[in-house]
């Protein structure tokens, strides 16, 4: 179940439970100059879209500019935004909460995921619940979390944790299942048992899977943080965005959305680089076969 593609950096596709590298057929394989040509075409298309947008709004006035400000106005707001001190304090507040929530989710998710993946008793009794919780829309709990923890950082961190923890947990669990038995036996021969076996054999073998989960979890956590700010609480990027839209400062609002798109893509890219750095031995194709 839940065998679907997730947003990834650079067209790397991943299932909810298992990395799956989509291999592009040879006709589109990266070939020095060919790759550069596509980039150029992409840039040209993006530029053309922006030109049409600019023309439709400011020259032909098909759409009122208050409604949909032209790209030049959005760019101007963007530049204005990144020099405002309150933007940076909001930025720090949102990303701080996000980081705390994701770190908590990683700790809980990896420990529980390893335990459930490793012990058959837990796998039979607990794993079905985890799958069920994974596939439920947990965003619906947001108002209750705010009711319990109040408006502010605590409820936002809790929301990030709640949304981020399940992909990490389930990917780690699936990863623990694929750890090669002979590696475990070798670990045992060398006297590793209990926690040591978990840390020295199980954790490294599972790491690529956990990182896929962390990538997905961080993206969902960002949703949690923004939603938490929309529903209440001052001082974050989501709050700034909502206020701009509420005041009908659409150029500011679109600039804020662009900031969020950049943050989300940067986060995915950074974790993707971590995956390459810390799990370079991991061969995606091997895991697909294992599944």
């Amino acid at each position: 179940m839940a065998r679907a593609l997730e947003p990834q950096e650079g067209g790397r596709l991943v299932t909810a439970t298992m990395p799956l590298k989509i291999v592009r057929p040879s006709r589109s394989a990266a070939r020095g100059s060919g790759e550069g040509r596509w980039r150029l075409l992409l840039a040209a298309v993006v530029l053309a879209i922006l030109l049409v947008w600019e023309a439709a709004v400011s020259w032909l006035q098909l759409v009122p500019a208050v409604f949909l400000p032209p790209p030049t106005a959005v760019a101007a707001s963007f530049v204005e935004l990144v020099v405002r001190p309150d933007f940076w304090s909001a930025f720090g507040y949102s990303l701080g909460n996000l980081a705390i929530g994701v770190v908590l989710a990683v700790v809980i998710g990896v420990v529980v995921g390893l335990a459930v993946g490793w012990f058959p008793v837990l796998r039979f009794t607990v794993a079905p619940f985890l799958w069920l919780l994974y596939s439920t829309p947990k965003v619906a709990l947001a108002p209750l979390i705010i009711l319990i923890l109040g408006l502010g950082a605590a409820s936002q961190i809790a929301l990030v944790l709640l949304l981020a923890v399940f992909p990490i947990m389930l990917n780690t669990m699936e990863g623990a299942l694929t750890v090669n038995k002979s590696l475990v036996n070798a670990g045992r021969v060398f006297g590793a048992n209990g926690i040591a076996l978990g840390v020295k054999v199980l954790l490294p073998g599972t790491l690529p899977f956990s990182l896929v989960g962390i990538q997905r979890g961080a993206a969902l956590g960002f949703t949690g943080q923004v939603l938490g700010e929309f529903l209440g609480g001052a001082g974050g990027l989501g709050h700034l965005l909502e206020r701009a839209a509420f005041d009908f400062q659409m150029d500011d609002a679109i600039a804020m959305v662009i900031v969020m798109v950049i943050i989300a893509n940067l986060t995915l890219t950074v974790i993707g680089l971590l995956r390459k750095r810390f799990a370079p031995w991991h061969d995606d194709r091997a895991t697909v076969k294992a599944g």
Partner: protein
Amino acid sequence: MSSLFAAPSGLRAQRGVAGFIAGLSPRGRALLIVTEVVLLLLLWQFLVGTLGLVNAVFFPPPLDVAQGFVELVQQGTLAQNAAVSVQSWLTGFAIAVAIGVPLGLLMGSSVPVDRVFGPIAWTLYAAPAVAYQPLTKAWFGFGTGPVIFLIVISAIFPIMLNLAAGIRTTSPSLIRAARVYGGSRMDVYRKILLPAAVPFLFAGLRQGAVLATIGMVVAELTGSSVGMGAVIIRSANTYNTDQSFAAIMLIVIWSVSMTQLVGLVERWLAPWNRRKGAAS
């Protein structure tokens, strides 16, 4: 859900309790899960409802939630709001399929479209759909417009990108074989590429159904006076959390049934795509 109860791939020799469970039939294992759920609900009822260990407003026990459900039905709020939500969901999902499938087909079969449109789609897909919510609220006003927009934007990318990936990753030797046997471009498309992409399409539809529900809830929580999300917000703000929990349960049931429905349609439309030994 059936994959939950499928026989697990043996990690190591099972002993004790695990061995006993592993020896159970799929039905026996399902029964075990049901027993677990009932025990958990009883425990929750006992700890919160009878002993009062936790404030019942925060975690209303199961009987209170049932009571909240009855209240929602009797007040008529349920029928009214559920109808709005279901209508938005179906409209949004239909639009996402109607736009996503053709775009996915185009992206999968044309390299320039894939190379130009792909990066844009991935970039937008990576950002949380919530971020677009305030813009849509300003554009479409306070109502079902933003809700439908958010459902479309949440569901469209997984459908489109999965379908495109499915077509692109079709085994080249299958395509060559079809060419060798004299298949025209159209034949290759219809008889090789489309059937090969069907499992990917349905994976995308399943993911899209889940994300559509999330988008719907988010939009209704943050900017709508009708719909199930609005019911949750209103009841939580008035401390009727038993009603909130009842509404949340209904949304969960809706989300699970829609993914199951996609699976059913897949088995009906594409019976050749049987899952071989699900991983979990």
